[in-house]
């Protein structure tokens, strides 16, 4: 059988094209052959110049104007067919030699070789030898007849030259045909086919043969007419031949003549599509097939079977009919032909048959059928044991890969570049298009095909193909391959790679599977803030302001369906996280993997990974953008198994989608134990020009700053510009939790350093105060080893410094100023607060001072002092003055703080009370382990506790003096303590404010042994301690008393306008003792002198107060000096039972004079019994019964009397 036969092929003159002389480089040979082969059709009209009619032409009806000669060039020649007498088109009628002169200099040898080669084609009627690329010497030499030299020239003239040569050849062939036909007509020929048995030469046979000879001769003449391009002549001869053959029963030749006639018919009507013609051809060909079959049956016993002619006829008809609308008929014909394959003895015949069937099915559009027969062809090739056959098998199988959907990406990429893009505009994958990706995937068949490709390519020694096939097999079908098979494939990959040069690229990726995981953006990359030229403070509202990733107030469309946008900056490294999976059972060593960027503006850094069997791994791939522009990262370049491949993310995404829909065998990531599939959209990445890059550095290390509770410390932060652009503007703000722990930021420092040049740095101070640990924190601490107070800073409790900064505005020359984006740097202040001084408790001290004096004591002197609120002193106790009233503890309240030092360093505690914006260091009485020593600093050793006393004498608030009480009195209607309680409740807010005000004035500072200092947060504790008696501390008395010296007419004002801020909380039958502070006259008074004094009584209420005032004087011993029996003091003026009326919020002055006889210390005290006290006063005094006398008393006024004598 012969390949490529068609109905018209009977009219083609077969020309063998043989390379002669020295070896011709394959591309040259291909070039020369193409040069020859382009003249497959030579018009008869063009032959006239070369044609010389020696005799009368037998081709009477030759169409000189329209006809043509058809040449069929067979490169390399062919084996002479035993059937060439039967069909002249099988004969090699001409031989063309091709010689590449540079590789064969000796022309004589070439000529000889060509003659030798042509000798093997005895049927050749004309020979030509073309020699290409002759040297000048060869051209200059004697012109040879046997070699035609084509001098080197341009392509066009070479073609023209060749055309002339071929036309010459065709003309000489035509003349030879004429000669042959004339001879055959006159003398006749003996034509034999292998069917005509040589052995049986019986007389009957001889007679039969004689009869048949004429018909056969007619048939052959017809053949030559066809070859000579004269179908009409041919038809005439064929008709005769058909008649004769039918008469003589020469079935085989009958069929041959019929075939020739159809060929003549078709050639004659070439280019016309006529249904009548088609029907005619069909009808005749079915007859031909029938005849051939009959001939086959007839000669069944013979050695040679003409079955191939039957099959060829079927194929010819099929090719003639091969159109989509006749698919049924054609496929029936082809299937019939395929059935005939069994009858073919020769393997190469079967090969040709299958090839032809596959080609025809392919033309018909039956891809799967074509692939099936191609695979049959490949199997036949594989049965032959040589490398060329294997190569052919490989190539044939490669052609089938499209039909089986296992094509190499190299070819598929060419076929449909972006047509099968499964992603639609929205970035969502349409499920239908995903399905289409997996259409017609017969995994079993795919595996078989790939395995056969692998086998054949190994046999054909094509390492790249075998690598590619093994890679496809392993990647697509690993779940169907046993572990041993997987290892086998891995080793065949490795073997193939060994034969390949290093750095070979292959279009088909192997393992691992790679999918995009995420973009772990470096903070400096993430925080690129678009600058709004209209807005001066462009940073506001730009970044996330809270702890939430999503806020409903952020710009719509920033997230969600639209593709996210990422900006990368030239020269700054970026990272992309990908996930690799090795679902196979062998160790996978990825020699290098890096991002594949086609836009060419990205330098990717390779990493190498080792993946154990059935594992997946997250790998961070990094690189540096090098140029401004868009970057798209379709996948990764992987160097694995010795070959470089590109792995596309999109393909894996589709694969995973397919796996999710049950279309693919398995999900490589799932079987490696990785998480569920999530589709990561690749953001559109744009590279922007360089921006400044600030790097923050906390001086002293980036570790957390260890602070004791309440500690105040300055932290130095260094900002370095690591970019290439200066920082021109910046803004520093706070965010995150515990913002109040940052007391101050030295804004002026960094502002003065602007602009920060590249490489420049600025250091500024941030003052921190550690916050107070909550009880939960303390418990957590307790669970840890108590010895080590250090603790790890918890996430999310730290404040951040948000630094927004930007470089200069770009190119202002063309008018519009384009602002490059600014950036944000977030500096976490890693504060680790450890427990410092601990406040165990705070309380108002109950001073153990006689709380009450008897009436007898009281009347001459007011030996009375303040007692804390909750203290129930015994009313019977008298005379127990623990604190000398003259030493100034009068009315003193002490707040005791018990502190414990659980740390491992020594703490010094310093209490400061800030009054009236002025620090007044109060006396601190501390008792460290019963060592009562008054000092300003209290040292507390580790694991010891100490008590710190804070005197609260100065906390009467002058501002609130009257107003608070006025308000209270104004709002209060009911009597008694209930009314007071209501009043207190009503004024609670105001009260709380005043309490806070009071508390904020108390500051307990500490200095630790670690050379740090801070403040103790004691607000809550103090508040709790003060809550009960706050009224007493804060509220002013209804009456305040003050003494003044009136000397020389001028009154020396002694500041006694203090608030004796507490009414006694207990009630006596006859007195209520408001206590006040001890006041002193600054200058000593001389004895033996009349001293004019006055007592000033101020009414703090809004109502008029009537009262009986009495003034007492006591000496050091507490004796009443105004006693009539006493001789130490003389006085003038009324001192007791003075009836006074004080108008509201007014003062009344009562003057008197004293004359001290004995130097020493004295104290004056004024007290008054209020007559007809109002309810408010009673409430204030907490009187229990309405008829109780209300006694008001001022603080003692201390006088130092110095003697003159």
């Amino acid at each position, binding site marked *: 059988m012969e390949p490529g036969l068609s109905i018209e092929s009977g009219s083609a003159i077969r020309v063998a094209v043989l390379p002669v002389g020295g070896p011709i480089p394959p591309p040259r040979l291909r070039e020369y052959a193409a040069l020859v082969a382009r003249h497959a059709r030579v018009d008869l009209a063009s032959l006239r110049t070369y044609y010389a009619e020696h005799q009368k032409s037998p081709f009477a009806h030759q169409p000189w104007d329209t006809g043509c000669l058809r040449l069929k060039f067979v490169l390399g020649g062919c084996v002479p067919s035993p059937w060439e007498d039967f069909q002249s088109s099988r004969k090699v009628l001409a031989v063309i030699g091709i010689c590449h002169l540079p590789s064969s200099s000796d022309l004589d040898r070439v000529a000889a070789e060509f003659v030798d080669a042509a000798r093997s084609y005895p049927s050749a009627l004309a020979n030509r030898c073309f020699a290409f690329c002759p040297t000048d010497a060869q051209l200059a030499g004697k012109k040879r007849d046997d070699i035609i030299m084509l001098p080197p020239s341009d392509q066009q003239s070479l073609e023209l030259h060749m055309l002339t040569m071929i036309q010459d050849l065709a003309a000489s062939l035509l003349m030879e045909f004429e000669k042959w036909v004339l001879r055959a007509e006159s003398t006749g020929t003996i034509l034999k086919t292998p069917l005509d048995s040589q052995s049986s030469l019986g007389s009957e046979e001889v007679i039969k043969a004689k009869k048949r000879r004429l018909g056969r001769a007619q048939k052959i003449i017809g053949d030559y007419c066809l070859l000579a391009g004269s179908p009409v002549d041919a038809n005439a001869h064929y008709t005769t031949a058909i008649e004769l053959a039918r008469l003589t029963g020469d079935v085989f030749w009958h069929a041959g003549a019929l075939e020739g006639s159809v060929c003549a018919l078709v050639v004659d009507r070439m280019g016309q599509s006529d249904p009548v013609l088609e029907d005619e051809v069909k009808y005749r060909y079915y007859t031909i097939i029938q005849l051939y079959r009959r001939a086959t049956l007839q000669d069944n016993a013979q050695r040679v079977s003409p079955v191939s002619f039957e099959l060829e006829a079927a194929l010819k008809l099929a090719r003639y009919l091969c159109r989509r609308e006749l698919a*049924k008929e054609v496929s029936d014909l082809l*299937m019939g032909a395929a059935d005939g394959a069994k009858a073919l003895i020769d393997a190469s015949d079967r090969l040709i048959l299958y090839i032809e069937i596959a080609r025809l099915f392919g033309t018909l559009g039956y891809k799967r059928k074509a692939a099936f027969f191609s695979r049959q062809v490949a199997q036949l090739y594989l049965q032959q044991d040589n490398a060329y056959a294997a190569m052919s098998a490989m190539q044939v199988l490669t052609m089938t890969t499209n039909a089986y959907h296992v094509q190499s990406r190299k070819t598929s990429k060419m076929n449909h570049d972006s047509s099968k893009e499964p992603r639609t505009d929205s970035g969502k994958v349409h499920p239908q298009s995903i399905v289409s990706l997996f259409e*017609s995937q017969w995994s*079993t068949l795919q595996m078989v095909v790939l395995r056969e490709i692998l086998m054949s390519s190994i046999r054909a020694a094509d390492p790249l193909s075998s690598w590619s096939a093994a890679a496809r097999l392993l990647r697509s079908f690993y779940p169907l391959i046993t572990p041993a098979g997987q290892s086998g494939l891995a080793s065949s990959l490795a073997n193939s790679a060994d034969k390949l040069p290093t750095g070979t690229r292959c279009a088909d990726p192997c393992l691992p599977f790679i999918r995009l995981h995420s973009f772990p953006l470096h903070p400096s990359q993430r925080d690129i803030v678009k600058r709004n030229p209209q807005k001066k403070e462009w940073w506001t509202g730009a970044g996330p302001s809270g702890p939430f990733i999503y806020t409903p107030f952020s710009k719509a469309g920033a997230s969600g369906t639209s593709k996210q946008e990422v900006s990368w900056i030239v020269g700054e490294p970026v990272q992309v996280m990908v996930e690799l999976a090795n679902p196979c059972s062998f160790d996978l060593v990825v020699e290098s993997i890096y991002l594949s960027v086609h836009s060419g503006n990205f330098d990717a850094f390779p990493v190498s990974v080792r993946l154990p069997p059935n594992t997946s791994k997250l790998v961070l791939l990094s690189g540096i953008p090098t140029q401004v522009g868009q970057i798209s990262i379709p996948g990764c370049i992987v160097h694995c198994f010795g070959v470089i491949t590109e792995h596309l993310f999109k393909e894996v995404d589709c694969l995973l989608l397919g796996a999710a*829909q*049950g*279309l693919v065998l398995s999900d490589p990531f799932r079987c490696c134990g990785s998480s569920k599939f999530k589709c990561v959209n690749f953001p559109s990445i744009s590279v922007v020009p360089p921006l400044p890059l600030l790097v923050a550095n906390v001086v002293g290390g980036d570790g957390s700053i260890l602070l004791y509770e309440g500690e105040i410390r300055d932290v130095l932060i260094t900002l370095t510009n690591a970019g290439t652009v200066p920082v021109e503007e910046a803004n520093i703000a706070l965010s995150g939790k515990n913002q109040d722990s940052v007391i101050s930021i030295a804004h002026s420092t960094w502002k003065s350093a602007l602009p920060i040049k590249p490489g420049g740095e600025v250091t500024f101070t941030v003052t921190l105060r550690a916050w107070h640990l909550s009880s939960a924190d303390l418990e957590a601490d307790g669970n840890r080893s108590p010895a080590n107070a250090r603790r790890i800073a918890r996430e999310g409790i730290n404040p951040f410094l948000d630094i927004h900064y930007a470089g200069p505005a770009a190119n202002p020359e063309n008018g519009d100023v384009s602002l490059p984006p600014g950036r944000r740097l977030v500096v976490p202040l890693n504060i680790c607060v450890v427990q410092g001084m601990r406040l165990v408790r705070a309380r108002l001290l109950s001073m153990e001072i006689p709380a009450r004096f008897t009436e007898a004591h009281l009347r001459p002197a007011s030996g009375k002092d303040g007692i804390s609120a909750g203290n129930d002193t015994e009313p019977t106790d008298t005379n127990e003055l623990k604190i000398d009233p003259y030493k100034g503890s009068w009315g003193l309240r002490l707040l005791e703080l018990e502190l414990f030092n659980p740390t491992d360093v020594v703490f010094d505690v310093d209490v400061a009370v800030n009054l009236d914006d002025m620090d007044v260091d109060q006396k601190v009485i501390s008792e460290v382990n019963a060592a009562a020593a008054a000092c300003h600093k209290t040292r507390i050793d580790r694991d010891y506790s100490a008590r710190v006393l804070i005197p609260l004498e100065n906390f009467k608030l002058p501002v609130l003096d009257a107003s608070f009480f006025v308000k209270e009195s104004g709002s209060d209607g009911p009597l008694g303590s209930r009314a007071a309680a209501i009043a207190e409740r009503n004024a609670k807010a105001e009260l709380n404010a005043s309490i806070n005000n009071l508390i904020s004035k108390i500051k307990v500072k500490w200095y630790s042994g670690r050379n740090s200092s801070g403040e103790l947060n004691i607000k809550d504790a103090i508040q709790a301690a003060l809550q009960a008696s706050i009224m007493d501390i804060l509220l002013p008395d209804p009456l305040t008393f003050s003494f003044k010296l009136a000397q020389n007419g001028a009154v020396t004002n002694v500041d006694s306008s203090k608030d004796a801020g507490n009414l006694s909380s207990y009630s006596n039958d006859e007195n209520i003792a408001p206590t006040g502070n001890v006041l002193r006259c600054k200058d000593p008074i001389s004895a033996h002198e009349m001293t004019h004094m006055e007592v000033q009584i101020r009414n703090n209420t809004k109502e008029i107060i009537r009262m009986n005032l009495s003034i007492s004087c006591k000496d050091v011993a507490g004796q009443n000096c105004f006693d009539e029996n006493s001789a130490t003091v003389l006085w003038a003026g009324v001192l007791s039972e003075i009836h006074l009326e004080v108008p509201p919020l007014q003062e009344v002055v009562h003057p008197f004079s004293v004359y001290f006889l004995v130097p020493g210390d004295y104290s004056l005290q004024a007290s008054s019994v209020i007559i007809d006290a109002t309810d408010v006063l009673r409430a204030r005094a907490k009187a229990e019964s309405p008829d109780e006398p209300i006694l008001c008393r001022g603080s003692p006024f201390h006088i130092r009397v110095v003697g003159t004598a």
Partner: protein
Amino acid sequence: MASTACFVIVSKNDIPIYEAEVGSAPKKEDLAYQHQFILHAALDVVQDLAWTTNAMFLKSVDRFNDLVVSVYVTAGHILSKSSFSPLLQPRVDSHGSISFCYQCCNANTIFMLLHDSRSEDGIKSFFQEVHELYIKIFLNPLYLPGSRITSSHFDTKVRALARKYL
């Protein structure tokens, strides 16, 4: 029972969703491949032929050597191609999102049998009964249309039918 029989159900996406070697001949892997290759190649013919007839059972549509391919095309084939009456069904896909998709009743499904026996009636009955089984599979709400049939029950039944009819 036929010595060679290979039964394949091909889904609408031309993916084999069920394959079974139901012949009595001893199983050989190479042959099984070959059978599938033949069936795969026959799809070209079947898909052309299905449009020319309204018969569901197409006998001997293709052959290779001694093996004959018979085909049973389910009725959904034509419906789905022209999408006349798609059933609008809410479906929860693998991502958890609910989508409404046009899902045709066993659309495009082709039963293919490669056989060497000529008992036409038996083959037709076999196809009809397998079709019933297949519809039962299809009614399973957990069965994702177009995905592989993994039910062992179905497999057992099909093999029993093969023994009975082929």
